[in-house]
């Protein structure tokens, strides 16, 4: 067991929308990641499943059972909180064992001991059991908080921003560990984060949420490579996708899109894209999205079709890549380069973008034309 179904669920806080007409099915043993900016309704969604909040409208099913009014303690779900919410006066052991101390879930001491140690082993916190939360690092607290949720063997886990308070390096490691734990546990999980990287890394499927409404639900590579709309394209990927407004025109039998603000740039469309623009837009007006890594740098001596020139505004080299800000017709675009490149400010650089690497969005609705 372990399924959750939202059927047209709305949650209002007075006149403010928490989530709106949410319809979503989370499958058995699935790791579902809900990604969105703060205030998008992520935590509201989790709290609705946990039973901390009741839907204003619509139906919520847990394991196939209508659960709108089921009290939290009768739902077989467990939630971890962004702030960990550990009892500071209890040891790590007691924090994890605490779930079994309530009258409803009480278990014999030796069974509790066995469970706590099993979980602690899995999370590699066995050596911390006697410590108090105040003596732990952020990453360790996070694991204790996970352990407390896992020990009850719920049918659904609800994880609220578990990695947001640990530093970048620990986050890398914890992400890998969560991948591993998820595989061992095989329990349905709803995981909420503002960081799209966690969604791509951990999710069987990813839901992108904005202003209380789901924008897209799909596998990570589809979310990344076929974003539903401009919002999804912007929210997923680093550096952020470049977006330009363009007009179409025919040129030597092919359709070209010319950006309003960057007249020296053009996107030569392939036949499928040409058909999309002709059938689904008015007068060939399209918003074009291209990711920073889609901008390819022409090496010396090569003259490529559709190439255009820009001037380097700044170049920031990182470890495994570099970010160049290129000025084309006075507009800046983001370009992702390989590591160990070198560019000078004001240097002229010739670049090109292949048609297969661009997204076409409807000018007014911002929906990706492949979904229209």
């Amino acid at each position, binding site marked *: 067991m372990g399924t959750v179904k939202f059927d047209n669920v709305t949650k209002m806080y007075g006149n403010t929308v928490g989530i709106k007409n949410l319809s979503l099915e989370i499958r058995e043993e699935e790791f579902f990641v809900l990604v969105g900016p703060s205030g998008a309704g992520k935590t509201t969604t989790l709290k609705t499943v946990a039973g901390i909040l009741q839907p204003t409208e619509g139906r919520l099913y847990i394991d196939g059972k209508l659960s709108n009014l089921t009290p939290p303690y009768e739902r077989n779900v467990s939630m971890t909180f962004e702030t960990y919410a550990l009892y500071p006066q209890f040891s790590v052991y007691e924090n994890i064992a605490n779930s079994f101390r309530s009258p409803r879930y009480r278990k014999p001491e030796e069974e509790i001991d066995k469970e706590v140690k099993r979980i602690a082993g899995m999370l590699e916190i066995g050596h911390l059991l006697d410590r108090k939360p105040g003596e732990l690092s952020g990453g360790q607290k996070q694991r204790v908080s996970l352990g407390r949720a896992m020990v009850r063997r719920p049918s659904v886990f609800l994880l609220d921003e578990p990695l947001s308070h640990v530093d*970048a*390096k620990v986050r*890398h*490691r914890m*992400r*890998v560990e969560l*991948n*591993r734990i998820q*595989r061992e546990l095989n329990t349905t999980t709803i995981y909420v984060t503002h960081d799209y*990287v966690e969604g*791509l*890394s951990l999710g069987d499927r990813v839901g992108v949420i904005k202003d209380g409404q789901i924008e897209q639900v799909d596998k*990570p*590579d589809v979310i*990344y490579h076929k974003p539903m709309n401009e919002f999804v394209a912007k929210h*997923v*990927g*680093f*550096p*952020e996708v470049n977006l330009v407004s363009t007009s179409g025109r025919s040129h030597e039998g092919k359709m070209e899109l010319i950006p309003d603000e960057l007249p020296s740039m053009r996107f030569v469309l392939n036949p499928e894209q040409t058909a999309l623009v002709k059938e689904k837009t008015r007068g060939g007006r399209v918003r074009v999205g291209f990711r920073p*890594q889609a901008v390819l740098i022409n090496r010396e001596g090569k003259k490529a079709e559709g190439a255009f020139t820009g001037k380097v*505004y*700044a*170049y*920031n*080299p*990182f*470890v*495994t*890549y*570099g*970010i160049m*800000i290129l000025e084309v017709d006075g507009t*800046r675009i*983001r370009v*992702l380069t390989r*590591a*160990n490149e070198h560019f000078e*400010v004001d240097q002229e650089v010739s670049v090109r973008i292949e048609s297969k690497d661009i997204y076409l969005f409807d000018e007014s609705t911002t929906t990706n034309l492949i979904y229209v």
Partner: protein
Amino acid sequence: MASVTLKNVCKTYISKKNEEVKAVRDLNLEVRDGEFMCLLGPSGCGKSSSMRMIVGLEETTSGDIFIGNRKVNQLSPRDRNVAMSFETYALYTHLTVRENILFPLRAKKVPEIEQMKRLDQVVAMLEISDLLDRGPTQLSGGQQQRVSLARALIREPEVFLLDEPLSHLDVTLRTSTRAQIKHLHDELKTTFIYVTHDQLEAISLADRIAVMNFAVLQQVGTREELLDYPINRFVADFIGEPAINFFECTLIEDNGTSTLKSNKGTLEFTVPPKWNSRLVARGRKHYTLGIRPHDIHVEKSPDTTAIAGVVDVFEFLGEENHVTAQIDGDVLTVVVSPYQFYTVGEKVNFYVPNNRVHIFDTETGECVSTTYKLEDKE
């Protein structure tokens, strides 16, 4: 424009318990004229104390600070001709952006015409000309940051110090502000000293980086030097993302060749012949191998060491993919291209160029391969 030289600078604070706390120990550092230098380290490493001593907000306990050829130890902050922008922006909320930026010039009674000329220059450079009549509370974080930079720059300092300027900005804004700071340095060619705990920021901005830990300067070098020639285990671990892979190893000697063999797994690394005798002469048994995730490849090429692994976790991340593999008891993280996909349980042979393997003395943390490379260069 001026260089900044710190000679044997120490800073000792007296704690509430009346104990001496050494914040900076014997710091020797030369920031060249026009250079972009980052002071990098974890919190409490002494980087902020160092900066505050350069600005004059703190006195040195001992040692000398020179700006150009002038010894500035006894000079007040305003006589040092340096400017600093603060992490928290520190704007006057009751003044407009224009008044905030002009504040340092008005305090110095710079003629009005000169004030306006400089104002035009800095607002153009920082692209804030449309914000001049607003109050700081009407600005976004990124805009406040730029106003704070403008207020420091309008003084035309010889040295410009920036304290964690990007730490309160979101990811997208950070990308554009980072580019802007880099552009600004290129345009002004003033000496920049930039303090941060974020290694990626330092790597992406600085000409050279000074890495500090526990009040001690560890290494000064360019991005390439710190990545490829780390002086010790701390620097190797602190710089780079994802973090460097470490393998605890034992030195096995056999007939004039030495091998470093992992204590947990099957990883074996043959010590390059030219270093063999030197390594043996050190007389130590335990070494740690360090391999950066981006130095590992899946294509075989000459002069590489093969590492046979089993994929434990595969992460699709869009711009690059990460593989975490089990090498028996050891764990190896590898950065692969966004077009390479692996499944859990898959057996993969990884290859690392021998000259990209770092050898650390396990006991002291010294990177002996860097030491040898530097000796070989001489």
